[in-house]
């Protein structure tokens, strides 16, 4: 997420709702009661935070073909507007007109053919049967989750702190800049985690501990442990990885406490494309390797900045596939006031990145190898038909994300799963069988039928050599699809690399129909659960307002901890880092980083905002 100038001061300057030091040690239930009593005061206020301008639909122009109308927002005043989604010259755009701030047109999806292919896979969820708020305002100003929301939480985000030891130039979020410290106590965290666990029809089972930089907290291991105690099967920690580069013990402790995977920012393979953690990543990977803790690399992709490295990033992932579980790319989301020309220079959408990956992998990973997130819903529906219980479903909007799995042979050839598995046919089979069960077919007959037909959808002759045993591979697939076996899924992940993509929204391309289907949620300190794309797109109305209400002043926090916020600044020792053997090994064969002059390294780091020990 890239923020331009913040567009305006917070519409409502909320005083802190409470003196946090006085309530932080209350038991979870009491903090919960207090939090819920404060939540209604923090809701976005119509007429103050936003207006409604829904009276007219934007016109289409010559050469434009209507695809749909939708609700969107004005990027300047957040007013709710009607937007038109249309096709022009093979691309999909969104246009809207704010009576106060004029017209906004933005690229929505860079390739119409992919848009159509993805759209076919849209499936909706069952909604949220236990909303956290009453329905009192139009979407997206009623989060949440409100009774309209269509998808359960697939990944819950919990902000453990807004402290960070980096000072990235584009960030407005970290404590020193925000002017307060947001750091919920362990009891408070327990309350927040419980809020998402009581969701029906499907409670949250995966949580990401995030920040700021969550590893700044000395009790991060306790937070992971609490998440496990509260029933989260999957716990991931979102970090820039720097502390893990220097603290091998921490990686071990995190794994032992139950962390399933580290989610680590990784924007490129050179210091110029990844000045955030280029020098530390090799050491972080070494320590994670020793701790046997997997990592997902998370590049934010920006045109004119690192789009030319998406292929190299994937190859870097494959090179370290013993420890890298996936690469999850995020086309840039432009939050803040950024002029159209500037936006066009940076803007990439999912199909644009897919095309670049195809080019940069010499056609080994093609656009057609990717499927939108909801394409796996038939698996959940089949299991639901068999078990009779609601299942975890990935029912985001088709334009939100895409994924595939790749394998590789010893000669380095990349083989996407779609080369030897007919994904489309397989999903149709599961959908048909689920329908048959609903109509009365015996569950056992349906399972048998899937087992017998499975081989029709797998061509092992095209599979990587390690899968030349057809039986073994079919067994995997059967266990994952039919038995929903978590350990088989884990084993599958060890043999492959997950490639994912999620295009978080911004106010320019905002589409309410996407956010209503969102499955990546934040739990806020007041107990509300808010989709990622309202939490971060309208920070003044959700994230900042709620966190400020439950924050410490900097003085309070320093008094409580005996630390000094201004001293928590990371100073990079580039000389030492580039001399180490792990550095050379990590990038070898991917990028020639050793030929880069030392001064260029230093410049790249400083330009980004991270000081260097000379």
């Amino acid at each position, binding site marked *: 997420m890239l923020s331009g100038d913040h567009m305006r001061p917070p519409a409502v300057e909320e005083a802190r709702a409470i003196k946090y030091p006085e309530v932080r040690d209350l038991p979870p239930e009491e903090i919960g009661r207090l939090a819920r009593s404060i939540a209604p005061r923090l809701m976005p206020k119509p007429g103050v935070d936003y207006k*409604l301008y*829904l*009276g007219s639909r934007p016109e289409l122009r010559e050469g434009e073909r209507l*695809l*749909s*109308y*939708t*609700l969107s927002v004005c990027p300047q005043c957040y007013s709710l507007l*009607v937007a038109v*989604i249309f096709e022009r010259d093979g691309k999909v755009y969104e246009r809207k007109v704010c009576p106060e701030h004029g017209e906004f047109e933005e690229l929505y999806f860079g390739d119409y053919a992919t848009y159509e292919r993805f*759209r076919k896979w*849209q*499936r*909706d*969820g*069952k*909604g949220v*049967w236990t909303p956290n708020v009453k*329905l*009192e*305002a*139009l*979407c997206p100003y009623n989060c949440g989750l*409100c*009774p*309209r929301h*269509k998808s359960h939480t697939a990944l819950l985000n919990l902000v453990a702190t807004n402290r960070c030891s980096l000072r990235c130039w584009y960030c407005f979020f970290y404590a020193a800049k925000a002017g307060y410290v947001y750091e919920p106590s362990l009891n408070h965290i327990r309350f927040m985690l419980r809020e998402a666990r009581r969701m029906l*029809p499907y409670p949250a089972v995966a949580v990401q501990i995030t920040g700021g930089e969550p590893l700044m907290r000395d009790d991060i291991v306790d937070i992971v442990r609490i998440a496990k105690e509260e029933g989260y099967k999957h716990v991931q920690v979102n970090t820039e990885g720097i502390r893990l580069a220097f603290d091998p013990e921490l990686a071990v402790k995190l794994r032992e406490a139950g962390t399933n995977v580290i989610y680590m920012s990784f924007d490129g393979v050179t210091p110029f494309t990844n000045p955030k953690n280029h020098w530390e990543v090799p050491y972080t990977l070494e320590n994670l390797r020793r701790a046997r803790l997997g990592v997902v690399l998370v590049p934010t992709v920006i045109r004119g900045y690192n789009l030319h490295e998406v292929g190299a990033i994937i190859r870097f992932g494959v090179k370290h596939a013993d420890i890298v579980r996936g690469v999850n790319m995020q086309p840039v989301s432009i939050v803040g006031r950024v002029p159209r020309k500037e936006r066009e220079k940076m803007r990439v959408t999912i199909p644009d990145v897919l095309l670049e990956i195809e080019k940069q992998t010499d056609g080994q990973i093609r656009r057609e190898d990717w499927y939108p997130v909801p394409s796996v819903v038939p698996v959940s529906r089949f299991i639901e038909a068999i078990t009779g219980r*609601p299942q975890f479903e990935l029912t985001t*909007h*088709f*334009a939100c994300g895409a994924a595939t799995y790749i394998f590789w042979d010893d000669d380095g050839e990349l083989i996407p799963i779609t080369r030897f598995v007919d994904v489309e046919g397989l999903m149709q089979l599961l959908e048909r069988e689920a329908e048959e069960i609903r109509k009365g077919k015996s569950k056992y007959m349906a399972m048998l039928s899937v087992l017998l037909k499975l081989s029709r959808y797998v061509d092992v002759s095209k599979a990587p050599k390690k899968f030349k045993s057809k039986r073994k591979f079919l067994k995997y697939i059967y266990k994952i699809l039919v038995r929903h076996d978590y350990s088989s899924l884990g084993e599958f992940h060890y043999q492959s690399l997950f490639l994912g993509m999620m295009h978080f929204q911004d106010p320019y391309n905002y589409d*309410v*129909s*996407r956010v*209503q*289907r969102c499955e990546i949620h934040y739990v806020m300190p007041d107990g509300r659960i808010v989709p990622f794309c309202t939490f971060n797109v309208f920070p003044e109305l959700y994230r900042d307002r709620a966190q400020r209400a439950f924050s410490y002043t900097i003085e309070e926090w320093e008094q409580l901890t005996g630390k000094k916020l201004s001293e928590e600044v990371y100073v990079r020792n580039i000389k030492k880092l580039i001399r180490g053997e792990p550095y050379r090994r990590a990038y070898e064969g991917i990028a020639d980083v050793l030929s880069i002059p030392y001064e260029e390294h230093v410049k790249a780091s400083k330009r980004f905002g991270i000081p260097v020990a000379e």
Partner: protein
Amino acid sequence: MRIKAFSFEAKASEPRPIDVKVETRVYEARRGRAVRLSCAERPFSLDDALDFDLEFSDTLQLTYADVIHGSFSCRVLDCEAGGDTIIKVLDAQLSGRRVRLFIVLTVEEGDVRRVYADRITGLGEWRERATKISRLASLPPSELEAL
């Protein structure tokens, strides 16, 4: 007490196909009988959008943000109720599939509370639902079936 209801048709193709037709009838329970209320009809206006969401976000998993994608024609029914238990019957056609859903409201000191709503994504067996609705609506199941 004025009770609002909606009858509408909506068709859209994105992001997923929608083809819905809903006719709503509104009743109140009077001494174990359901009496149909007479309702004035008027066109839908933006001020009704929130009430539309209240009515259909759980029952049909449909909101104003969904119907705006394509064609939408809607009649708003303003019904005058005197009793304290209201039953709404939603006769819906979802891509040709017919389904009947119930909503039960109670009125207490001028406050309308929605005490029950069928949910299309978790619709249980009719017998179970009928028992619950009939208890909340103070109507015998046979009366419900005749609505």
